């Protein structure tokens, strides 16, 4: 069995589901509302792209964490809620290929969502009359936003693992809400560079991560992925 064939099935399952469109619809509101909020909160009412995007994207990246966690939890969790997991496990496909295909479509969907939110943020800024456009500036901001999004995507893997062991997508969503609350508390205490889910925000604001942050982030991501692969290979399916 070619992994491309499994990948094709995974892509089709996602694109043809109602959830796919719904995620983009829901996450279009984030940049629009935050964009309006950013403009309204500026003292002068006149704001340039540098200020607009800096303020907006720090909020958006964290919003993305919820979106990316939902996506990864749903891609795995729906197999349990639709009870199609038994179908998957009785196909002549290695379980690691199934997991790999799912992780790849999650990555693609997450990046598409990040790109979408960025484009909506730009469109909202354009409509709201933000001034001072510069291609170089937008390019730099976009690059940092995408790297930040990738870092957030890395730390969604424990949520993916939880979706599998809890056999659904509600537990990881609960977990991420708790993590968002913790993140605010820990960031205010100065622990942002040491908590996996606040490390991407550190990169968003500074454009740099120290080695300990990279190790913590990578370890968290790898633990989630290894756990997910191991669970699919060894866990019993009652």
């Amino acid at each position, binding site marked *: 069995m070619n992994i491309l064939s499994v990948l094709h099935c995974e892509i089709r399952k996602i694109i*043809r589901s*109602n959830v796919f469109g719904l995620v983009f619809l829901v996450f279009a509101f984030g940049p629009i509302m935050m964009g309006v909020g950013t403009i309204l909160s500026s003292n002068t009412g006149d704001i340039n792209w540098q200020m607009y995007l800096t303020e907006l994207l720090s909020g958006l990246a964290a919003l993305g964490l919820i979106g990316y966690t939902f996506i990864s939890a749903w891609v795995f969790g729906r197999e349990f809620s639709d009870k199609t997991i*038994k179908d998957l496990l009785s196909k*002549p496909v290695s*379980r690691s290929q199934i997991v790999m295909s799912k992780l790849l479509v999650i990555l693609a969907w997450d990046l598409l969502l990040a790109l979408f939110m960025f484009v909506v943020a730009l469109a909202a800024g354009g409509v709201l009359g933000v001034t001072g456009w510069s291609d170089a500036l937008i390019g730099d901001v976009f690059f940092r936003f995408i790297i930040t999004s990738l870092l957030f995507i890395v730390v969604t893997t424990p949520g993916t693992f939880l979706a599998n062991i809890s056999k659904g997508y509600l537990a990881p969503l609960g977990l991420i809400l708790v993590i968002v609350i913790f993140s605010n508390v820990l960031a205010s205490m100065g622990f942002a560079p040491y908590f996996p889910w606040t490390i991407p925000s550190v990169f968003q604001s500074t454009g740099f991560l120290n080695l300990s942050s990279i190790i913590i982030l990578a370890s968290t991501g790898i633990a989630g992925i290894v756990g997910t692969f191991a669970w699919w*290979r060894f866990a019993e399916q009652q």
Partner: protein
Amino acid sequence: MNIISKQKNRGTKAIQIESLHKNFGEYKALNNLSLEVNRGEIFGFLGLNGAGKTTTIKTLLGMLRPTSGKLYMLGEKVHAGNYKLWDKVGYLEEATFYPDLTLIENLDIARRMQGVSDKESVNRVICKLGLEPHEKKKAKQLSLGNKQRLGLAKAMIHNPEIMILDEPINGLDPAGVAEIRNMLYDLAKNFGVTIFISSHLLEELAKVATRLGIIHNGHLIQEIEMAKLEQSLQKNLVLDGRDKNALKSVLKEQGYEFEETMDGHLKLTDGHALESPERLAELLVKSNQPPTLLRVITEDLEGYFLRTIGMVRGNI
């Protein structure tokens, strides 16, 4: 159907389970279960809820690890890593599908996941199960019966050598039940497909299975060829008369053993009454107690099943 590979493996059993134990903590779901299913056989797997049917099937499919014991399908050892085996096995536990995808899309995903390169296999299985009018419908909009047909279509799209079916006729109307029954019979008889079918619909199972296995408390307590089932069904002579007390006295005097049924008749449990009911009738007439009812009643499959597992349905 791959005839060459079928011939190569002809010597091995389709399914072999040897001394299978499966514990969930302290609970023993399967207790020294052993069974063999021959190629081309339709094996009916019967048991009460919680008897261990689903645990057996899930262990057979590598979804659960046995606590001890061995499982083989088509001569190959079953374990989670031996995923290539599922190329030859079709499985339906309950009709599952991707609800937002159409019936044809669900089948195309099943085809790809089974590694079937022939795209026409989707149309063929749709025709076989009479699903043509529904192929463009979203799976969630299908009726219960058509969802079940979709599940069956997914289980057989790759022409498996073994089909493992758990309650495959749930939700089907009587015509659909007969249609599926004929199809399974045709697959086994003409294509040599081995069918392992678990159902609580005992009468339906009796119509389609060639052999029956009864599981109780995680143990296979009875295996019987359907052709020989008739001989195993218990027969009783039931009689009644106008004066029941007088009738009882005559029976006691003549040494017949009997018991009273729930509907007030007398059931004779000894063999010699069954062998010659005409002599009993003659005796009762001579004793001035002519019977108003004298009938040989054959136990139904449900009665046989309950008797086999040591349960009593009621005295009929």
